[in-house]
């Protein structure tokens, strides 16, 4: 007891810090991530898949919940369905500055989409298909929101292999067990 009383404030702080670090290391929530993917454009398909695959590579258990337009990312026809719209997106780099009245013209979505695809492949960014493959290989759970599937009249057969189907409660049950939860 006498020896303990002789500990200085700095030593006590150091011991507490070490103990907290040790406890945090064993914290299962630091190994779990739950992500919601709610957007269905090519540009917004990337962030949830990049974060999910990076988290899996860091040894985390990851679940991505696809809802509303995000369902497009795991649709069998994602290659055709994922597009970029330049309208209402002033930050999008265009060959020449363009007001929204022009970006809304027919053919602009196709042009912006092929522009982004060629730029991405030139820079060797992984494609959506490759990221989905990596995600499934590394054990990322891909979960489709059954409610929005019903609203948009999608069938379970419309989605790529390995997709699970669930509702909000299933996502929340995953999310409450992890420190990382993202809505994208």
């Amino acid at each position, binding site marked *: 007891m006498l020896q303990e009383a002789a500990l200085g404030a700095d030593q006590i702080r150091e011991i507490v810090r070490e103990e907290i670090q040790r406890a945090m290391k064993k914290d299962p929530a630091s190994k779990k991530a739950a992500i919601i993917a709610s957007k269905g454009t090519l540009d917004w398909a990337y962030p949830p898949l990049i974060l999910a695959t*990076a988290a899996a*590579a*860091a*040894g*985390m258990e990851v679940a991505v919940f696809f809802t509303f337009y995000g369902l497009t990312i795991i649709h069998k026809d994602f290659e055709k369905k994922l597009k970029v719209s330049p309208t209402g997106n002033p930050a999008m780099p265009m060959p020449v500055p363009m007001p929204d009245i022009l970006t809304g013209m027919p053919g602009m979505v196709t042009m912006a989409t092929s522009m982004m695809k060629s730029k991405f492949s030139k*820079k060797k960014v992984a494609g959506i298909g490759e990221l989905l493959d990596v995600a499934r290989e590394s054990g990322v759970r891909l979960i489709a929101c059954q409610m929005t599937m019903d609203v948009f009249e999608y069938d379970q057969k419309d989605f790529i292999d390995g997709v699970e189907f669930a509702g909000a409660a299933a996502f929340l049950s995953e999310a409450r067990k992890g420190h990382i939860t993202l809505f994208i």
Partner: protein
Amino acid sequence: MAIKEDRLLDARGLLCPMPIVKAGKEMKTLQAGQVLKILATDRGAIADMPAWAEDTENHFLEWHEEDGALAFYIRKGEDAS
């Protein structure tokens, strides 16, 4: 002081998240204590590699520029998978 690697991973030309995805796969095949050298050109890897190494309980040793690429050295940790 030069570090001798047990395995070399060429991740040049790849962008986030592929360098760490490939590093994760490669690291699984190494024994604890062995060193993985990763060559990359993605400058985001300068921050990502040490962060990934810490999260996976591996030991980040050092990095330097080498022939226009970035070279990272990571030693497999005792508790790493």
